[in-house]
């Protein structure tokens, strides 16, 4: 997919997350990176029709639940998703992960993200 098109589609997904989700706001930067990684990877897997469960732990089940809920909402809000190829979904979701890491952690102005303790 053309990069500009992929970025435009990624921006739609980012908009949805910014208006509806809370999992990206854990209070520490390292925690946010894990949340982004686990939830967006699983969302990508769900949207590509792949297995998104890694193990039987409650932690994995939690990330999977967020991903299922997010993938469902993406499909409801953006019908183009169901017509997008698996490769293109991977491209868009990878861009999304990069973008979320930037806005929520690397480019964030939140001074609490680097505190050591909760």
């Amino acid at each position, binding site marked *: 997919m053309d990069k500009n098109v992929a970025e435009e589609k990624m921006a739609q997904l980012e908009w949805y997350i*910014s208006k509806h989700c*809370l999992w990206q706001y854990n209070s520490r930067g390292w925690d946010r990176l894990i949340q982004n990684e686990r939830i967006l990877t699983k969302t990508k897997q769900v949207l590509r029709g792949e297995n998104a469960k890694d193990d039987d732990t409650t932690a994995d089940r939690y990330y999977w639940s967020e991903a299922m809920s997010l993938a*469902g909402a993406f499909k409801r809000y953006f019908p183009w998703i169901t017509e997008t190829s698996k490769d293109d979904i991977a491209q868009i979701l990878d861009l999304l992960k990069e973008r979320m890491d930037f806005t929520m952690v690397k480019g964030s102005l939140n001074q609490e993200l680097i505190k050591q303790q909760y």
Partner: protein
Amino acid sequence: MPYHQFKCSECIPERLQHAVDKGVDEDLTSALPLGYLNTIPGTISERGCAYCGAKHVIGTPMKNVIHLSHGPVGCTYDTWQTKRYISDDGNFQLKYTFASDVKESNVVFGAEKMLKKNIIEAFKAFPQIHNMNIYSTCATALIGDDINAVAEEVMEEMPGKKIFVCNSPGFAGPSQSGGHHKINLQFLNQWVGTGEPEIYSKYVINYIGEYNIQGDQEIMRDYFYRMGIQILATFTGNGRFDDLRCLHKAHLNVLECARSAEYICDELRVRYGIPRMDIDGFGFEATADSLRKIGYFFGIEDKAEQIIAEEYARWKPELDWYAARLQGVKMCLWPGGSKLWHWAHMLKTEIGINVVSVYTKFGHQGDMEKGVSRCEPGALAIDDPNELEGLEAMYELKPDLIMTGKRPGEVAKKIRVPYLNVHGYHNGPYKGFEGWVRLARDIYNCVYSPAHSLVHLDISKDEIPTDKGFVTRQMLSDVNLSDEIKNSTELRECTSDYDPIPRLRKKLEENLYTFPDPETGEWRQVPLEKLKKNKVVDVE
């Protein structure tokens, strides 16, 4: 950074970085005010103290507990009963407040002996209550009273009594938020892990950061019970002390107000491996998404979908009646710490409200990240505003109403801006589907109150119209509505009861809920006494 310069704060240059205007191309990497810093000298803040945050937000919603402030009587009395965190067993926590009543002589000679006497006296006066929370205050923290030692002594002398000591004096943090942090961790360290609960369902959650304001918890409890989920403990609204000792035994922490209670969730995740799931219980779509997520976690999505379908069918036509009449209404959404982000987007999409400003008194930058994300471009975001900034913003933005607490609300009324109390609520509960309709109704009644339109007349100079007679809210709200909406047979006004909580309690008494057995998975009723007072055994 698109900082907003308040004229009234030009003389306090540090205030500049506490307010931003969200522009069209702005995101969180370019527009975010500072937050959770000490209030700047010279500014009149609306914040509370760290003792107040610990006791009055998080401690006192716990039911069946004697809440005793160790300090001068003013600390407890002046801040008592500002919230309506009710309980389903008689509201002991609202009816009584206790203080050790520290005086000058105690400051000089110490107040420990007097505290011990007071603790025993309080337990004897209320023999049915076996738990106590003691809160330190500025005075007793400064004189160095060892409250923990006194509590230990009493617990030894009075077997069966349990005392939690909260060391969060007023100065222990920039605002009430410092107290939220302290009480979260101190309760966890002192009492969590000391009880073994009876598990009666395959699905077990803690409901965290929920304070049962006018029954919010009881609305959500109904949904969870309909899904067959056992709520081990609610931290802390309508929560029992004994249940809270068992927080470590849940499968999932469902977190509502992250501002006040994310700390305990994060620690429970680290220490006991319980995942933290943040939810929004306000708004139709947000509540539905939250129930769905919890449904996925336990593999009971179908149960969640069934509740969502039933609740939409019952309440959506009523929400839409108000939404049709509230399109474009301008609001300043100025709550304490978390409702700016819980509500901003749902108010816009489901009720048509134009949120022109969000503020937070004690939120951190994380709350502003959520708030700024969820409001629309053009909104003014303010951290820890002072009274003059609030006034300047209202004069500039000309909101149709503000949603805030009692103190700034009264200020707004003076300049003829109507306000809704979103701390203690006007006619809550506001949570869940039914609650959201109640909030829409309260907004509608506030904006279109015929009485309110009269306050804009100044009898010292305005001509008073004598030709106008009877006016109703609907005569005002329906002026520009299409006939299709006016005559709709689908839409209807709120039919929620004056107080919906007795209905929910009656339902609980009738014991209509079923839960899956943790071993066999068989769905069956659970004895009512377990639902109301689960068995907890002491463990070392």
